[in-house]
């Protein structure tokens, strides 16, 4: 675990997955899994989303993500983790979040990446508001996200 590289960034700017991936590919890596979340263009109800604004709790966000990453590091043998989460106003199709995990073994990379995004979704203090035609709504938390945690033995 000495050589493990952890990078956590909260930023308004977009990110480049190729650049982030290349930074995670170290000598012995072999496997790299990443999740990218994006702003959907419309709701299940087919209402059009004009924009999405993300606010967060500075300081606590980074703490919580680090807590989650540390849980993953204890559970799986991994070589590197990068989490980037954007805040501010985003448009449909824009990337919101990047979770990248490198490991010698692909299943560890898949599981750790899946675990980190599941926990981030229910624990990291970010809140989305959607601007629909004329209205601004706070996005409601989804039971689906809480249920997603049940597959991890924590």
């Amino acid at each position, binding site marked *: 675990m000495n050589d493990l590289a952890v990078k956590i960034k909260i930023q308004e700017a977009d990110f480049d997955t190729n650049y982030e991936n290349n930074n995670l590919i170290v000598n012995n890596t072999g496997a790299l899994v990443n999740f990218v979340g994006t702003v959907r263009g419309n709701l299940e109800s087919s209402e059009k989303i004009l924009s999405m604004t993300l606010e967060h*709790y500075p300081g*606590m966000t980074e*703490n919580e993500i680090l807590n989650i990453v540390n849980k993953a590091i204890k559970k799986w043998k991994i070589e590197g983790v990068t989490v980037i*989460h954007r805040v501010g106003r985003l448009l449909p199709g824009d990337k919101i979040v990047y979770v990248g995990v490198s490991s010698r073994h692909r299943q560890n990379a898949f599981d750790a990446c899946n675990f980190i995004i599941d926990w*981030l979704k229910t624990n990291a*203090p970010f*809140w989305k508001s959607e601007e629909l035609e004329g209205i601004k709504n706070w*996005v*409601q938390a989804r039971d689906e996200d809480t249920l997603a945690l049940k597959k991890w033995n924590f």
Partner: protein
Amino acid sequence: MIIKYFSWVKDLAETNEETIELPENVKDVEDLINFLEKKNNKYKEIFSKKHLIKIAVNKEYVNTSFKLDKNDEIAFFPPVTGG
């Protein structure tokens, strides 16, 4: 004590942050909620959705029995929706 609010809790609180003098009889988070509810109806509305409200003290999740110190920063917010 600094109190922070986020998302729709912030809308109901009509502010994102306020500083209050912690009264002697407020020992834990539960006490603080009771104190605020007595102070102003807007807090009553916030905490009527208590099952939804998450609490953090000094940027760590806590529950309502968490003991408070006058220099703490406490935050009230709804379930998170990032990612």
